[in-house]
């Protein structure tokens, strides 16, 4: 158990260190986030649609696009110099490896979300008196939902001939439930209502998290083995 935790921590630290030294994915994720926020703001009909009306959708499109860049990179790193083989030779079990990669991705996506949120507040003129705890909670839940499936699918995608294009196509259907749910809940929160108004979405998202995190851990072995 302690050994597994240590292996997980090592994988997370390794991925973080690589990202800290290169900063390629973080840079492109943030640039993409600003661009998406900007395009959605400008593309709306300013006379009829208020910024606050499209704000929740804009936020979640930004978050999920930013996440996709990070997830695509996670296993591309391992493919270079076949470092995935080294990881397997180290005796780390597949589920431990998956949890390590998942946490590394979550940290990455979390940082992207934290850094792009202030830009969202500024651009869309969001009032600062927000139910911060509820907002953070649904953000974590929705992020875990799509990053877990995304990590598994990216491990598959990098082994295909078209690694960069296939991940969005495979992942998009799995974004529907977390993103739609998160948008619905964010809308309620931005309008000053309580989360209990949308408890159905909340439960659905919680069930999604449980189902897909465990399923991804179980299926990772089948993706890995040769």
């Amino acid at each position, binding site marked *: 158990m302690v050994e597994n935790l240590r292996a997980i921590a090592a994988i997370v630290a390794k991925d973080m260190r690589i990202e800290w030294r290169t900063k390629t994915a973080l840079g492109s994720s943030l640039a993409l986030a600003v661009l998406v926020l900007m395009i959605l703001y400008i593309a709306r009909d300013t006379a009829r649609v208020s910024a606050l009306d499209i704000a929740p959708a804009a936020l979640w499109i930004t978050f999920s696009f930013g996440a996709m860049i990070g997830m695509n990179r996670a296993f591309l790193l391992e493919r270079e110099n076949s470092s995935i083989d080294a990881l397997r030779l180290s005796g780390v079990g597949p589920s431990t490896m998956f949890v390590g990669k998942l946490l590394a991705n979550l940290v990455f996506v979390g940082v992207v979300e934290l850094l792009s949120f202030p830009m969202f507040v500024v651009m869309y003129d969001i009032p600062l008196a927000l139910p911060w705890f509820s907002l953070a909670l649904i953000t974590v839940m929705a992020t875990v939902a799509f990053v877990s*499936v995304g990590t*598994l*699918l990216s491990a*598959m995608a990098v*082994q*295909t*001939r*078209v690694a960069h294009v*296939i991940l969005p*196509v*495979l992942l*998009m*259907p*799995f974004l*529907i*439930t977390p993103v*739609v*749910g998160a948008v619905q809940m964010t809308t309620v929160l931005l309008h000053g209502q309580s989360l209990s108004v949308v408890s*159905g*979405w909340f439960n*659905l998202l919680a*069930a*999604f998290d449980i*189902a*897909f995190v465990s*399923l991804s851990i179980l*299926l990772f072995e*089948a*993706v890995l*083995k*040769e």
Partner: protein
Amino acid sequence: MMSRDKARSHVRFGWWIVGIGFIAVAGAYVRALAFTPAEVRQGLAMKIMYVHVPAAWTALLAFLISGVLSLLYLWLKDRRMDAMAASSAEVGVAFGTVMLTTGPLWGKPIWGTYWQWDARLTFTLLLYLMFVGYIMMRGSVLDHEMRARFSAVFGALGLVLVPFIHMTVYWFRTIHPQPVILKPDGPSMPMVMQLSLYGSGIAFLVLFSGFLKVRYGLMGLEDLRERELQNAA
């Protein structure tokens, strides 16, 4: 691994079944168009149902077969299951395309719009797109064994996703006609229309099984060809 003769006979008999299926479909339409009364309010537009509904049934059946066989592959590692799952997905996408094109043709005169973000429409569109992704992914993996494994993983994820998508889209307003045949208090449709619909459904099933058999046989032949190339190299 299929033998060459076996694969060829699958293809040959498959085409015979496809031929019978087309004759049956033609027969079902003659009955539906000429010998079945039109619905009072919708008029002739309603006749499209005899294509749309069986196509939808067949597509969903094909996706179900594909999902279940993918899951079984993970467990039993039988290559034939992967081949059948893939064939079923491809034929399902073909029938799904029929469903998605006939639906809007009916929707325009009856709903006044081609497309609606209605629960059932959104749900089936997403399911359809998932299978398009499945087929794309298969095309991008060269190794047999890996392709089968990845397809099975994606199929298993998809099977679990289905109820979630269903819930998600159901919480939007729905305007799609509610089930007319498969509902608790029995079908609410005149017998003459029901018979035409069932006839058309059976014709579609025959067509589907023919296509499935042909595709399955072709997949066996593809396997053999790839093996030959590998041995020659």
